[in-house]
């Protein structure tokens, strides 16, 4: 078994290896991105707490996946303060957050860091800044599309969309489990659409007009 954070957990060129060859200077664009991000985080409930980070690293030590992240949670706040958030978004980091909230409950400064991670994911989606190998982003987008279409998730449709956009051949790796689930009547192939789907769409459209993010 590879130790956590070993090369086997990381695929492709490490963002860090590339960055080491570049001068460490925050560009104007990157600074703007960091500023926009901070403004959005400040709007989250308890979001202003982010200013009180003391760089203790409790978040990174508590995170079950930080070993595989190119930038751990503590480093993300350091990067934000240095105006280099774009590097974090281009790395594999934010989409490795499983939303377990361990960092949030342990942070001595009471920073809701899981919500900060969500905001980073949304910022990356907004500007299309996430590495191609970030399959979690693809899965989340596919999930949102299925829910927008039906008002509920439909697992077979979601999985089909996901593998078509990532690596269609990998779906064969799921065949064993799929067959076992089918044998037990645990897969429904026809999506269920809620009766109130039109009303739900009106609600979402109204929020858009209202300038939501």
């Amino acid at each position, binding site marked *: 078994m590879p130790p956590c954070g070993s090369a086997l957990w990381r695929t492709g060129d490490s963002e860090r290896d590339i960055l080491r060859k570049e001068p460490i200077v925050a560009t104007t664009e990157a600074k703007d991105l960091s500023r926009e991000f901070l403004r959005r985080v400040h709007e989250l409930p308890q979001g202003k707490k982010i200013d009180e980070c003391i760089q203790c690293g409790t978040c990174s030590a508590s995170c079950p996946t930080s070993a595989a992240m190119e930038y751990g949670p503590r480093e993300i706040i350091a990067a934000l303060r240095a105006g280099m958030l774009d590097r974090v978004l281009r790395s594999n980091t934010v989409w*490795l957050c499983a*939303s377990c909230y361990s960092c949030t409950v342990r942070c001595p400064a009471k920073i*809701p860091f899981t919500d900060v991670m969500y905001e980073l994911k949304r910022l990356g989606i907004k500007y299309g800044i996430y590495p191609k190998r970030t399959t*979690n982003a693809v899965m989340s987008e596919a999930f949102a599309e299925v829910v927008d279409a039906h008002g509920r998730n439909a697992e077979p449709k979601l999985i089909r969309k996901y593998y078509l956009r990532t690596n269609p051949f990998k779906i064969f790796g799921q065949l064993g489990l799929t067959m076992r689930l089918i044998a037990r009547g645990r897969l429904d192939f026809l999506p269920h659409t809620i009766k109130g789907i039109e009303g*739900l769409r009106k609600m979402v459209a109204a*929020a858009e007009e*209202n300038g939501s993010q």
Partner: protein
Amino acid sequence: MNTTTNTAFSYFPGCSVQGTNKAYGISTQKVAKVLGLELVELDDWNCCGATAYMSIHEKHSFILCARNLALAEKEGRDLVTVCNGCYLVLRKTSKYMAEDAKLRVDIQKALAAGGMEYNGHVQVRHFLDVVVRDVGEERVRESVTKPLAGLKVAPYYGCQIGRPFAEIDDAEDPQMMDRLTEWIGAEPVEFPLKAKCCGGMMMTTQSEIGQELSGKILRNAKRAGADCIITACPLCQLNLEGYQDAAGAAVGADCDIPVLYFTQLLGVAQGLSPKDLALADSLTPVEAVLAEKVRS
């Protein structure tokens, strides 16, 4: 709405329980009936959005949840769910709407565009919490007809039942299922990874990470001497029961162990039949371990 005396709830199954985790829904309804609880499926409920939708669009995600809260308010009952993911995002929405005036106004406007309203009168509950805190020790013990003496159980809570709000149980060392396990005559084992992350969605998207996280949990349960694991979340259940070979390979240990929903184990102790509890839906040898370990 008063939660301490309620016996009737609007029930939010969630998409997983409608699909790959039907046995959780089936067993929940059966044990609820034995405990004198009425779970009425929320009419035309929609997906809560889960972590995935929250990652794409926050406000849409709050609207998805608020529509369900509005439906429950109209039905005049509190909302019970059996899924940790649904529980947290529904609770987060109700909490943030209560605490953030701007968000509340925005969401209310959106709901109104679809002809609905929500005024903050619904409590979001996890079914485990209803069983342990509302029904309570005395009545759960009374409902037991076949105590599960001899069975060692590793109660696996996952993340989003206790974190981040820790409103119904401890964030790091939750106890509800441990207590329930004792009430039905079985023995909860010391299980340090009981609230560590199973990997969630990453079991599909980053399988090497998902398999290692789930593998550590399964290995920990086995080393603690457990005969089986019980869960309170459909995604945790599927991750722990569906990938045991790969998880075992990832952590270099034997990870074969039966995994049940807590409602199934409670139902067995209440004398409900394997069919009532859909035990045959399990991917692990649940019935065999019960037959072997429970002293009758």
